[in-house]
């Protein structure tokens, strides 16, 4: 149903407009054909894009009553949440896909290193998976789309900026592990670290389990 609404088209157009301007500006400043600046920029824009793609997923079903029809038809919370997340993640990847054109552009301008490109896009895909997981979780907690978007954005920003407290002893090193920005930076540098992959996968699983529990929890309200 997501592609029948204008949301992915509008969000995608604004995303690539902003990404194109910021990335070209970065290339102009650096005067180098490198892909690395693309990933933190795309990651930050994804923080805003993902909540807009996921806000409807469960909140709208709950508001209109279609969730009741699905559950009465025998659809269980876990497959429902998983289906919503897969749809949102695939949509976010489709919206991200035109960013691959920057690779062609860079190849035309210079001779960029393919390692950071591959690792960076894998990192972005995993990052999108995590953000859509957080978004589906936020959407499962409310029947209001705007509230779902705000909660998802807040959660995403919390994880993105978790490393700002890295000066603090103990808490700093712990929070650094939670920072999505740091994990994405690691991919952008060309490193495909299994601990980073595992962290993203763990976050996705955790958000989906919590979202399924929230859907089940609606029966207790």
């Amino acid at each position, binding site marked *: 149903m997501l592609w029948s*609404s204008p949301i992915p088209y509008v969000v995608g157009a604004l995303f690539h407009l902003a990404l194109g301007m910021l990335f070209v500006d970065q290339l102009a400043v650096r005067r180098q054909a490198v892909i690395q600046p693309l990933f933190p920029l795309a990651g930050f824009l994804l923080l805003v894009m993902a909540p807009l793609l996921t806000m409807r997923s469960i909140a709208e079903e709950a508001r209109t*009553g279609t969730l*009741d*029809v*699905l*559950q009465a038809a*025998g659809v269980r919370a876990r497959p429902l949440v998983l289906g919503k997340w897969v749809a949102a993640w695939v949509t976010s990847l489709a919206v991200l896909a035109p960013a691959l054109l920057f690779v062609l552009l860079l190849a035309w301008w210079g001779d960029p290193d393919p390692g950071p490109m591959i690792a960076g896009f894998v990192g972005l895909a995993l990052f999108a998976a995590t953000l859509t997981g957080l978004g589906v979780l936020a959407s499962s907690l409310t029947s209001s789309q705007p509230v779902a978007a705000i909660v998802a954005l807040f959660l995403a920003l919390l994880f993105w900026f978790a490393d700002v407290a890295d000066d603090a002893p103990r808490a700093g090193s712990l929070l650094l592990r939670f920072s999505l920005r740091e994990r994405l930076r690691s991919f952008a540098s060309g490193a495909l670290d299994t601990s980073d992959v595992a962290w993203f996968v763990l976050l996705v699983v955790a958000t989906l389990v919590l979202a399924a529990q929230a859907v089940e929890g609606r*029966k207790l309200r």
Partner: protein
Amino acid sequence: MIQASGLIRRYGGREAVRDVTFSVAPGEVVGFLGPNGAGKSTTMRLLLGLLRPHGGTASIDGNAGYLPEQFAAYDALSVRSYLRFIARMKAIEGDDIERVLGAAGVADLGDRPVARLSKGQRQRVGMAQALLGRPGAYVLDEPTQGLDPKQVVETRGLIRSLATADGAAVLLSTHLLAEVAAMCDRVIVIVRGRIVADEPLGDMDDLEARFLRLVGESELA
């Protein structure tokens, strides 16, 4: 068979459903009457597992066809696509779509987007999705709401035939006493969350006077 045994459901500190016990046998149409806020919809949602009871048990043998009070579908889909989707969710084998389109009186609306349906047409699509797979039990929350007089007569005939021809157990809520008189074998009256009458229709000489007396007595109690 539809069965409720000692059902209790609270919202905050208020008991919306109090010790509700009844059953609906196969081949029986039971009218569920009560003033607004009496607990009809809550009881129905408990029966379908959409709400969890704070006490007692609810069960329905096999699958249940459910028509909610405010039926909503996915606006972007055509009626036929929507029914196909719900059939998949119900894991129904074979093509049951054309049969239910015809039975619900919407055979000519199969290709129309749900967004372009009138309220009465939506209600009949809701009835069509409830019929998918020939369930052994139906829970119908105000099934003739929004229908014109001709559609009301057709829907009443359809509901009656679900019990007589298919041998299904049908529980339907309504505010229309004439509807109960036209369709039901038995009447259950609920007031303030408590069942105050469970009687065969034939035992009620004057349904309206009996209903008003029951409600009046319970409201005063």
